[in-house]
């Protein structure tokens, strides 16, 4: 984990650098989700950057597609594409689109950006893997604001019905969305109880505690007969003090000065 914790600093720094270079993007939700993605890719998600289409791979659907800078940073670090390419984010002709697109960039499993759709797509992948008797696992990451979308609850009903124990939902609960805090805009809590009552194996963790993330991702693999949900309590903008729990940083790029301050905190703080 020691190693991983220095890696997450690098990943956070990349998120800040690439959004600054792009001049737009979503730092808050990228910084809240990065620890979850880092542990998932480092220790749990079976993948091969040299063979991104390997049929036996596990799959991740980043349903909160606006947080793709976090995913792009992880994919680059794992070797899916050159790290220099991160600085092309959102530019005309870049493979790193403002929201992820599978046909443009290796490692992206599904186009997202319209919130609420990812869990259904993940469910379909999990269903297909079951049909083929494959042992792959499907992971879906949503935002907590995203959980307000009706389609998510349709999928939440369907996954237990199909006994999809190969499907894991990770909810990045940073309590932030655009117009305000989730608990004011359209409250979800008690979210874990709701998920349990929908028949999901549910656990709540600190989404910035690397060991806790690792533990939860190990535990879900042992669950039989039902899908699993990990409610990850996170901080929007985590790692940059002036962005933390500050709604203004949902979808705004830092300027050069802010970028330097943020990098200093992340790398030397």
């Amino acid at each position, binding site marked *: 984990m020691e190693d991983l914790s220095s890696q997450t600093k690098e990943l956070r720094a990349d998120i800040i650098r690439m959004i600054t270079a792009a001049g737009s993007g979503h730092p808050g939700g990228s910084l809240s989700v990065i620890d979850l993605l880092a542990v998932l890719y480092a220790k749990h998600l079976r993948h091969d950057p040299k063979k991104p289409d390997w049929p036996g791979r596990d799959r991740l659907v980043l349903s909160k597609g606006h947080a793709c800078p976090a995913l792009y940073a992880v994919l680059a670090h794992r070797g899916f594409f050159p790290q220099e390419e991160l600085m092309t984010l959102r530019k005309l002709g870049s493979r790193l689109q*403002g929201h992820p697109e599978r046909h443009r960039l290796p490692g992206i499993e599904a186009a997202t950006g319209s919130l609420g759709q990812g869990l259904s797509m993940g469910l379909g992948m999990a269903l297909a893997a079951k049909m083929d008797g494959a042992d792959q696992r499907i992971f879906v990451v949503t935002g907590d604001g995203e959980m307000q979308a009706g389609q998510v609850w349709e999928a939440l009903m369907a996954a237990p019905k199909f006994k999809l124990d190969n499907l894991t939902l990770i909810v990045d609960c940073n309590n932030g969305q655009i117009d305000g805090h989730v608990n004011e805009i359209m409250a979800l809590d008690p979210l874990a109880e709701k998920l349990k009552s929908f028949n999901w194996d549910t656990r709540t963790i600190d989404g910035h505690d690397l060991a806790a993330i690792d533990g939860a991702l190990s535990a879900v693999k042992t669950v039989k007969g039902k899908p699993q949900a990990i409610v990850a309590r996170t901080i929007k903008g985590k790692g940059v003090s002036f962005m933390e729990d500050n709604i203004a940083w949902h979808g705004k790029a830092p300027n050069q000065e802010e970028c330097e301050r943020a990098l200093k905190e992340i790398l030397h703080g």
Partner: protein
Amino acid sequence: MAKATREAFGEALVSLAEKFPQMVVLDSDLSKSTMTVDFAKKYPQRHFEFGIAESNMIGAAAGLALYGKVPVCTSFACFLIGRLETIRVAVTLNGANVKLVGTHAGLGIGDDGASQMGLEDVAAMRSLPGMTILQPGDALEARQAVEWMLQHRGPVYLRLTRQKLDDVHRPDYKFECGKLDIVWEPEPKAKHFQATVLASGGTVGGAVNAAKELLPKGFAVRVVNAGTLAPFDVDSVEDFAKDSERFVTVEDHNIVGGLGSAACEAAASLGMGKPVVCLGVRETGESGLAAQLYDKHGLSAPHIMEACIRNLS
């Protein structure tokens, strides 16, 4: 002064709030982008935040309307049209007096990329009987279109830009629903036009620039603003067909089903044999700056000029 039509919309809501006491505003976690946030602050009793749940918002808007309120529902154009079937049944089948306001239309949203670009919304909305579709070409028109929309009884879709638009209308402009209006013609007025260009929303300014550049090259081109996309002004198309060699349409929308299609349908139904050259988006959209994307996808002034003078035979 250049202004985004979404900004003019936000200002109009506040200034018209007292005149239309039944108006209520519904949001789905984008109020700072759709610019309803000032209205929400000033009239919290008349503002409802639904969160990231557009279907529920639109369904509830229909209910509010069926009870007698005048709901204005906002989101990005792409997320509203994502709920087409709700709009189809709850809104248009009921004839519910719902005002749907889709902002960040088309490529104009820029670097957020394809998933955030409403590029099919006009096509879908045009296929719904009873839906009036407005797309103002500048802030002045936007303000008046909002007022018209609020006094009109029936479903309306108002399509607005993220990007700033230059003024294309004179200060004495009066919005008329269902009318194509001429925004630029050579002075003195030509008897015969190389082309009549129909543009709407984000493309009107580029069309005017194209026409101005073509004049010294010896081509008289008229630029018409299509502020109402449905119902479509076939009578004016007939008038323009009499003195124009061709029509050119240019829209920040998929080439299928929008302004170009409306113009083709009108021109064909008139049987006057005038060709229609359609400029519009043929792909899914992508990240980039709005101006870069207009260039790359064939919507900017040089493309419009070429479409006006290209040999068609």
